[in-house]
């Protein structure tokens, strides 16, 4: 499957390269439905090509002022078309319905679907090529590569991440945070679950007894019944109110998330 996806992505990209060769970059009009890609385009200095983003694209500050075509999972086709895009950056599978429509209209697509950090580097290079910012793309990739090096630890600490407390949503194998945790020398307690954001039971969390708890929401676990004997609570390794975007969004800010995690895991 992965191989097929890679080939498809490759073909699409080649297609895009051809498009971008035909049209010069002056006529490039990009609508980005991917918050991470919006961040990348801004980081590469290509924001003047952006003619539309989603309401989820809130970073950097200037991204908030771009024309909004809808939210992440329900962008409006009409608003996208109104911007006369020459390229639409899309995120399957959440946006599959809109991708289908855009394909019918033969609008060139950049399908962003990174599965791992290595994929992000590839996508940065690809979009860098399209917006003719190859040098910036190379230096961004190098910067990320240098700052996202795997750390070896003698004792591997186990980590539980909570995205929501009702229901209890955590991160599984297919999330970037899972990879980031192992990169910084820790182990996600739900790394065996193949989904990206699984809903888990309280008992399962207590049974797996994490050394560190990270809450990505404003709640806390001080007064939770049954949680007080967790290693993380006993050793006061509960971290609250972290910005989920730096840990979950497959963009340049993963470096911030990595540094934050590194600090947490070395405490």
């Amino acid at each position, binding site marked *: 499957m992965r191989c097929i996806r890679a080939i498809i992505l490759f073909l699409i990209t080649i297609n895009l390269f051809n498009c971008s060769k035909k049209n010069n970059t002056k006529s490039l009009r990009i609508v980005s439905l991917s918050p991470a890609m919006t961040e990348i385009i801004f980081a590469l200095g290509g924001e003047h090509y952006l003619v539309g983003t989603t309401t989820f694209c809130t970073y950097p500050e200037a991204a908030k002022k771009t024309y909004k075509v809808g939210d992440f999972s329900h962008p409006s086709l009409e608003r996208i078309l109104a911007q006369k895009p020459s390229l639409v950056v899309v995120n399957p599978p959440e946006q599959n319905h809109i991708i289908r429509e855009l394909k019918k209209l033969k609008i060139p697509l950049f399908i962003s679907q990174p599965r791992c950090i290595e994929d992000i580097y590839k996508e940065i290079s690809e979009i860098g090529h399209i917006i003719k910012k190859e040098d910036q793309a190379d230096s961004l990739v190098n910067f990320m590569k240098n700052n996202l090096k795997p750390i070896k630890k003698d004792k591997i600490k186990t980590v539980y991440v909570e995205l*929501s407390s009702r229901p209890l949503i955590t991160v599984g194998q297919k999330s970037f945070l899972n990879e980031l945790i192992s990169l910084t020398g820790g182990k996600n307690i739900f790394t065996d679950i193949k989904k990206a954001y699984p809903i888990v039971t309280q*008992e399962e969390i207590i049974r797996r007894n994490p050394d560190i708890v990270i809450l990505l929401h*404003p709640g806390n676990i001080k007064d939770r019944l049954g949680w007080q004997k967790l290693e993380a609570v006993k050793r006061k390794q509960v971290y609250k109110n972290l910005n989920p975007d730096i840990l979950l969004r497959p963009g340049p800010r993963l470096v911030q998330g990595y540094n934050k995690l590194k600090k947490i895991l070395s405490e």
Partner: protein
Amino acid sequence: MNKTLFVVILFILAVVLSLLVGPAQLNNQILQLRISRAVLGIFAGGILAFCGGILQGLFGNPLVEPYTLGAASGAALGGSIGVLVFGTVSPFLAFLGASGVGFFVYTIARLEGGLFRDRLILAGVVMSFLCSSLVMIIMVMGGKELYEILYLLMGYLGIIINTTNRILIIFLIIISLATVIFLYRFHRELDIISQGMETAAGLGIDIQKFSLIIFFATSLIIGFTVSIVGAIGFVGLIIPHIARLLFGPKHLYNLPASFILGGTFLLLADTLSRIITVYELPVGVVTSLIGVPFFIYLYKK
């Protein structure tokens, strides 16, 4: 009386199972957690089935369930607004939603003359539709909030027992015990009304007033229950039927049976939802999945 024994044994079995079975090793902390969860399950299931039984009796309609009068959709709306505003389901807003919708249903039902009882159902259904569409708007707008609303709509017993929730559960027990005992005293009137309105009127029962009392009392505890555990389906609709199949039409017997069977059934469903996968399934999904085949089997017998 064989049946009573059967129901009691089933209940004890469900309690023991829910305390002993689960993914984690049984220790003091886990036991506390499971006890709280079992108490919540017994009361939520009991209240839903009990109110379902009363409302089916009052309206003489086997398709009425605790949510027909709008309390659940009101709670779902309030809870969803809480998700939007505070980022998490707020039981207080959910209860506010349930009471608000209850008030609207009451006002609509009183708008014109005619029998209050019959207008209640219509008003409840109409308000439910309105709330559902508002909830849908919020769901369409939301990202990860979607799950929180979904679990509120499907029912979820795996809530975290923190200080707030502990107080809510204690409140739930007190309010529901008081209301259940209060409503149970009307079992004779319910028997008469379910035999026919003319008989009831002939025997001097003030149906307007009686419907009003039942409407307010059931809306109060259903709204409260739904605010905590979400709109768990099936229990309030089918358990009263099973209680009637086993114990006959007399509310003196079938109402307490509904309560116990409702609690038993929800406990069993919750135990299952906890052990099938490492994922937490919404308990409302499990209640329907195991409840429907069981009901068909019982009905055939």
